[in-house]
């Protein structure tokens, strides 16, 4: 009995690195969840500020008045299928990691 338990324990040893990695991944996800939940109010405030600024601008004039030729080209690059209008309603946050700006 003791021998079989010992063998079972031995069999677990090769799995320990995987268990360790899994634990590291899990703890990082927990940190991620906590960052998300702690930053939720700040994120909502940033979005609210942007929406307010945007509304103030659009109240003055329509957003897309300055559609010069270059921009029209970009809009046409979307891959809408079957003649459907291009879906451009995504309103998430794109984070650009750019610690240094070099403005000449």
């Amino acid at each position, binding site marked *: 009995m003791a021998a079989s338990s010992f063998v079972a324990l031995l069999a677990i040893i090769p799995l320990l690195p995987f268990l360790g990695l899994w634990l590291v991944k899990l703890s*990082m996800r927990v940190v991620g969840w906590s960052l998300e939940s702690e930053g939720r109010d700040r994120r909502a405030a940033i979005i609210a500020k942007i929406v307010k*600024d945007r509304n103030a601008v659009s109240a003055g004039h329509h957003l897309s008045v300055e559609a010069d030729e270059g921009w029209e080209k*970009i809009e046409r690059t979307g891959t809408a299928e079957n003649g459907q209008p291009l879906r451009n309603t995504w309103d998430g946050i794109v984070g650009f990691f750019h610690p240094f700006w070099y403005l000449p």
Partner: protein
Amino acid sequence: MWAAIAATQRRWPSAICAVYTGDHDIDRSVLVSTVKNRFDITLQEHSLVFIYLSRRRYVLPSTYPSFTLLGQSLGSVVLAYEAFQLLVPDIFIDTMGYAFAVALCKYLFPKVPTAAYVHYPTISTDMLESLDDKTGAKGMHSGAGTGLKGKGKKNYWRIFAWLYGWTGRQIDVVMCNSTWTQGHIRQLWKPRRDPSSFAAVVYPPCPVEELQAKISVTPESERAREDSILYIAQFRPEKNHSLILQAFAKYYRSSNKKPKLVLIGSVRTNTPDEKHIYNLRLEARELKINEATTFICDAPFSVILQHLQKSSIITNGMYSEHFGIGNVEGLAAGLIPVVHNSGGPKLDIVIPYEGEIIGYLTESDQEYADAFAKVASLDAQQRYAMRVRGRASTQRFSEAVFAKKWIEQMETLVEMAESTTVSP
């Protein structure tokens, strides 16, 4: 970078572009107007937000006198953690080579799609190989892999390359600025998915349209061009201005046309670069070409335009330049490139257009000198035709092409972001 943000804003007007920066003095409205005036790029100010980071010192090379590569990479993890404390994005993009920061994002937030736009690999296989080089012609670390210290360096670099490869494999969408960078990234990051579709080449936006509008390439302008060679590059050792000086000296002595060499570049203040340019001036004097050579530091764009209009040849001396935007600018202005047979100039820029050559690839000072002489001796019509071909070939580096390719990659990221939002 500005072009990328502008293209993103235009394609998804309701999206918010958050820029994590360490420059606390950036004012949003001033920046938007500067970008408009300098690059003619329109940013939507109301959709832009700056997130100010205070731990930038962790990614400065000066913080790590030894083990700089590893130090900076781990430092970028610290900085990225600060960024996520301030704001968790829906898509995370690195454009400055901090792959470790992107990997951190993937592990903290597996549902956030990530991307990296790689301008040069943090470590390259060329760097590893150059340690064993015996010719001394393979960049800054050429032949540095001997002795105990050299072997230690080699092992450190190998371990770092492995770690860099592991982080790279965590990134969802990879873009590279050139074929050279793509080749190294594919080799180092060894993706599990199909390597042939991994890491798209997205050339950086070059002011091709502006140069084509401001600089004429006509039979009349051809007559006004001088036998002048132009090199636009920062005055830094790896740009190898010395090779160009030596090559020019050989050409100068063999030519009876009194050719000129013009070196334009910026000098980073309070760095060894200031001494470097002093040494280059000395070298020009020793080679007895100082009267035919002009050094121009931190030239305004108007001066660069003047030289692009009247010079005949654009050159570069750097081994394995990652892309080489200066060469593209020269080509777009109608100059004939005589460039190093490596890196971006070889793989992306000086490649035949419609089956005919648009410039010359060289390595040794003698080869450069021969190529300078070859351009000068070309029949006037042949030379003009080569300028026209070269200019036409630069269309693929234009700002419009960049925006199109950037959006293609962004669409993948947005689709991923939308799918994670919709699914329970």
